[in-house]
């Protein structure tokens, strides 16, 4: 098994390329996730209507849509390996932490594509006032990183259980509550002209803590 820093970087890069390629071959995961995100968005927008002057509600709705899109999409990466019986082969070829990091980066890209479609649509459909772009994009990036870090680990966990998809949301939600609290309060702050620094600091420290703990634990995830 490769051990040096350069070879594990190469392993992570190879996992990422493999993920992108197998996703691109079927595009099943991406199209399902995009459709789900747009469905959630439609339901929210249709039920709530346009609300240009209620930025506090808009911030909450935006992150609820993104949270549900992430919950529907991110379980996919590990469940696919188990369903195709390729996890054992993958384990023989790379260390658990490089598999996890490769999949984490892939999930992050995946969330990025989802947000590229969902967020502009949300702003248009809800009649939102133009956000303060710098802080807004920073919050989106940090929030996605935190979502991906927690969701990737839970996805790896539930891939080996019976319930799989049904369990994913239940297990991920407690880990994502601090993320939801921080991103919503930060998004509210940037719309009302406040500072996003507290929310950004909370998100960065939370993401780093989750990643540090999960890198320690990935070795225990696959043993048989």
């Amino acid at each position, binding site marked *: 098994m490769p051990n040096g820093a350069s070879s594990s970087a190469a392993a992570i890069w190879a996992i990422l390329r493999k993920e992108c390629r197998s996703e691109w071959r079927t595009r099943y995961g991406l199209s399902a996730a995009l459709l789900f995100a747009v469905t959630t968005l439609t339901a929210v927008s249709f039920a709530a209507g346009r609300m240009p002057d209620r930025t506090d509600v808009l911030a909450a709705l935006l992150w609820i849509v993104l949270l549900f899109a992430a919950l529907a999409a991110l379980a996919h990466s590990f469940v696919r390996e188990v369903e195709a019986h390729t996890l054992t082969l993958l384990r023989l070829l790379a260390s658990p932490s490089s598999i996890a990091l490769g999949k984490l980066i892939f999930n992050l890209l995946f969330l990025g594509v989802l947000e590229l479609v969902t967020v502009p649509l949300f702003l248009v459909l809800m009649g939102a006032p133009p956000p303060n772009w710098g802080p807004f994009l920073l919050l989106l990036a940090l929030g996605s990183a935190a979502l991906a870090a927690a969701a990737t680990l839970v996805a790896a*966990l539930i891939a080996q*259980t*019976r319930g799989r998809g049904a369990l994913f949301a239940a297990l991920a939600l407690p880990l994502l509550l601090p993320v939801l609290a921080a991103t919503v309060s930060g998004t509210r702050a940037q719309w009302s002209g406040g500072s996003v620094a507290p929310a950004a600091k909370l998100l960065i420290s939370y993401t780093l803590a989750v990643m540090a703990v999960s890198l320690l634990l990935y070795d225990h*995830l696959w043993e048989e």
Partner: protein
Amino acid sequence: MTLRVWLFVWVAAGIAAGFLWAPVVPVLEDTTRVFYFHFPAAIITPVALAWSMLHSALYLWRRDLANDDHAAAAAELGLLFCVAATVSGSIWAHSMWGSYWNWDPRETSIFFVLLLYGAYLALRASIEDPARRARLSAVYSCVAFVPGLFLIFVVPRIYFSLHPDPLLNSRGKADMDGRIMACAVALVLGFGALFFWMLSLRVRLGRVERARESVAS
């Protein structure tokens, strides 16, 4: 056997003293009494969670299924105490704050603990192989430690809370009637003993079940 009887007498006496002997706090009036159930249960809840997480970490380190028994039993009992603390707190909040649920920081953190126990037990229920169940639920338990720290220790201290500080106020000293304090401390000890007694029963039961399965197979 006798310890069990003494524990029953101790807790019953503590509750009776809370109703008959201890005075009520002026503003809270008779809602003071909920304190004797709510406070000990709310103290035992994080103790149970910490016990469960400690044994999860020990399991990952030593791979002894006895640790897994402890982690599972503490989570089940912790859920019980957590529900007791949440329900009693919610009833109290209705009479004092005017609503059963208002996402006060304390309510947020106890609700998070409730979700966490639920998710942990759902994860356990969905895996059949004992070693794999122990391993995966231990991993989840260790990860949940991170948001647990954030929500239990960071959030209630940053955001403003209406929750009364029961034992120490912001000036760092107790300003509570000695009799109320005595009942509360007695019941914390009683609930703590109750928790560890039920935990030992559950752990022994787990060991017996495992032994039976290994004989049967």
